[in-house]
C-alpha cells in the first residue's frame, strides 16, 4: 500500500508550499479549534440544545483536505462535521446561529449541529446517518462528470462508517464509473465506544481501496501539510479522469463520542499520547522552524480567531428564534 510520508517528504523538498497556503491551514485549524472549544462550553452550560459531536483533535484533517479543494468542489460531511464545513469556508456566525437554532443559521434552525449545509460553498450537508452521505457524494460526482463541470467531491466519514454497507456500495459504484471522488476516512480510532481494532481485522481502512480497484493511502491526520499534499494528489487525479482515491487520515477524537460522554472506555495513556500529538502546537512549531510565521504573528491570529468566535456567539445570541409555524416552510412535498 502506498504510504504518505515518503511522498510527502519528497514533495515538500521539491516544491515548498506557498506561505499563504501554510498560513491558511493554520488559521483554519485555529478557527475549528476555537469554535469547537466554545461550542463545548456553551453546550455544557446548556445554552445549546440537542447534542454535540466535537471535532477537537482532528482539525488538521479537515484543514488539509479542504485546502486542496476548489470553492465549487463538493463535500459531504458527518455528524462530527463542524471542522469540515469551517474548512470549506463557512462563516462562524451563521454556523453558531444554526447551533442555537436561530433563523440566521445556515439551515434556519431546521438542521442544527449535525446538518449544516451551504450549497453555495459546495457543502451538500453534514449527515446524521453514519455512512449516509457517502452514496450521495457519489451521485454528486456522477453529476459533475455528466455535466463536465470539472468539480470533484470529497466525502468525509469515520472508521465506523467504513463498516457500513453504504460505503461498500458507494465505493464500488464510484470505481465502476471512474468518478471524480475522494473517500476521506478520518480514522479517529473509535466508532462511538468501540475501538477500530474490534471492528476490522486489517490495520488500515486504506487497505480497502485495493478491493475496489483504486488507491488507498494512509496519512498522518494530525499533519495538515501531509493531508494537503496527499489530497492534492488525489484531487489532481480525479479531475484528470483518473477516478476515486481512498484517503485514511489517522487521528483521534479528544472528547468521547458526544459532549458529555466521558470516554471511560479509552486507556488514559492513549488519550494522553494523542493529546501530546496535538496537531496545533505541532504545526505552529513547524511554521516557526520554517520561518513562515513568528510567535507574534501566531499570537495575533489567535486573537483574531478568538474575537471572531466571540462575535459569532453574540450574533447567534442576538438572532431571532424561529416562530413555531416556520416549521411549515421549506417543505415541498
Amino acid at each position, binding site marked *: 500500500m502506498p504510504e504518505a510520508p515518503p511522498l510527502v517528504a519528497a514533495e515538500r523538498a521539491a516544491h515548498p508550499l506557498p506561505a499563504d497556503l501554510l498560513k491558511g491551514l493554520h488559521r483554519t485549524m485555529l478557527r475549528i479549534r476555537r469554535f469547537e472549544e466554545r461550542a463545548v462550553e456553551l453546550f455544557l452550560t446548556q445554552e445549546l440544545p440537542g447534542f454535540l459531536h466535537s471535532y477537537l483533535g482532528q482539525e488538521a484533517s479537515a484543514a488539509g483536505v479542504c485546502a486542496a479543494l476548489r470553492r465549487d468542489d463538493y463535500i459531504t460531511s458527518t455528524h462530527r462535521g463542524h471542522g469540515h464545513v469551517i474548512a470549506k469556508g463557512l462563516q462562524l456566525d451563521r454556523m453558531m446561529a444554526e447551533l442555537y437554532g436561530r433563523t440566521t443559521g445556515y439551515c434556519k434552525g431546521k438542521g442544527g449541529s449535525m446538518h449544516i449545509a451551504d450549497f453555495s460553498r459546495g457543502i451538500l*450537508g453534514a449527515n*446524521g446517518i453514519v455512512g449516509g452521505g457517502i452514496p450521495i457524494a457519489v451521485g454528486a460526482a456522477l453529476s459533475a462528470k455528466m455535466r463536465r463541470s470539472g468539480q470533484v467531491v470529497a466525502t468525509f466519514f469515520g472508521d465506523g462508517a467504513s463498516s457500513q454497507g*453504504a460505503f461498500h456500495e458507494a465505493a464500488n459504484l464510484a470505481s*465502476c464509473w471512474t468518478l471524480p471522488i475522494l473517500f476521506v476516512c478520518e480514522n479517529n480510532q473509535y466508532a462511538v465506544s468501540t475501538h477500530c481494532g474490534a471492528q476490522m481485522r486489517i490495520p488500515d481502512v486504506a487497505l480497502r481501496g485495493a478491493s475496489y480497484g483504486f488507491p488507498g493511502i494512509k496519512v498522518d491526520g494530525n499533519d495538515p501539510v501531509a493531508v494537503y499534499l496527499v489530497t492534492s494528489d488525489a484531487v489532481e487525479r480525479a479531475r484528470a479522469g483518473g477516478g476515486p482515491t481512498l484517503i485514511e487520515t489517522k487521528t483521534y477524537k479528544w472528547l468521547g463520542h458526544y459532549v458529555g460522554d466521558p470516554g471511560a472506555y479509552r486507556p488514559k495513556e492513549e488519550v494522553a499520547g494523542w493529546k501530546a500529538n496535538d496537531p496545533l502546537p505541532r504545526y505552529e512549531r513547524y511554521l516557526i522552524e520554517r520561518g513562515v510565521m513568528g510567535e507574534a504573528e501566531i499570537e495575533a491570529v489567535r486573537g483574531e480567531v478568538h474575537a471572531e468566535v466571540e462575535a459569532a456567539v453574540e450574533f447567534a445570541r442576538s438572532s431571532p428564534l424561529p416562530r413555531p409555524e416556520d416549521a411549515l416552510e421549506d417543505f415541498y412535498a
Partner: protein
Amino acid sequence: MSEIFYKEAVRDALREEMLRDERVFLLGLDIGRFGGTYKATQGLWEEFGGERVRDTPLSEAAIAGCAVGAAMTGLRPVAEIMYIDFTTIAMDQIVNQAAKLGYMSGGQARIPVVFRTQEGAGRSSAAQHAQSLEAWFAHIPGLKVALPATPGDAKGLLKTAVRDDAPVMFIEHKLLYNTRGEVPEGEYTIPFGEARICREGSDVTVVALSRMVLRALEAADRLAGEGIRVEVIDPRTIVPLDIDTIVASVEKTGRLVVAHEAYTRCGFGAEIAAQVMERALYSLEKPLKRVCGKNLPVPFAPVMENFVIPGADDIVRAVKELL
C-alpha cells in the same frame, strides 16, 4: 387516442422527458442493454446511450443515494429499484436522505428524483417479491407517492413525477405491464392529487389502488348486472391525496369500500378510512369496509397466493354486505 401497453407508456414517458430535458437520466440494475426486468425501459439504451441510461451494480443503497446526490447537484435522475421489496436496502437514502435533506437544509436543496419501482402479487414470486409497500412511503413527510393503474395514467403521472422538484415514489404494478389501455395522442401530463372517477355510481363508493382498480371495475360490472351502481375511484396519487373527491362520493353513496393488495393492517386504506370519518362520518350509513391483503407474508403456491390477495369476488361480497 391510441392503445398501448402499460410498459410502453412508462417507456414513452421516460423517452419524452429525456428528449425534452437533457438533465433527465436513468439508472438502475438491468435497465440498459437488457431493457428492464419488465421491459419498461426497452430501447432507451439504444437511443440515448449508456451515459443517460446507466446500468448499475446490484446496489440499491448506492442507486438511490447516487440519484439523491445527482438530484441535489443539478440533474433529474429516475432511479429504478427493481422490486419494491428491495427498497428495504435503500431505505436510508429514500427516507432519511431524499425525503428530508431539502427541509433540513432550510430549503437550500431541491431533490428532483423519481424512484421507479413495482409492487404486487400474482406471479407466484413468494413473500420477498410480492409486497405492496406504498403505505411505508406515504407515511414519510417529504415523499410523493403515485400508483398508476392504467397506461394513460402511467404516462401522464410519470411525466409529472419527472418534472416535480420533490422526491417521488413511482410505484408500478408487475401485473399491469402487459395490460393495454388508451393513451391520448401528443403531449400531456396528469397533475398529482387529482383522483379519477373511473365509473360513476350512486349506491356504493369503492376506492381502489393500483391493480385493484381493475378488479373494482370488474366487480362493478358484475354488480351492475344486479342493478347495483358502484362508483369506482382511483386516487392515482396517495401523496398528495385527493380526499375531496372521495368525500364527495361518500356523501353521495353513504357507503365506502377501500381496496388494495397491501396488508390490511396500517395499509393506506386505514388512512383513507380515517380521513373519511373525520370529514364525513355521519354520511356513512354503514361501517366502511376494507378489502385488502391479509396480514400474512404472501405465499408461493398460487392457490394460497390467491387466498391472501383480494379479488373482484371479495369486492362484490363487501359491496353487497353494505347494502
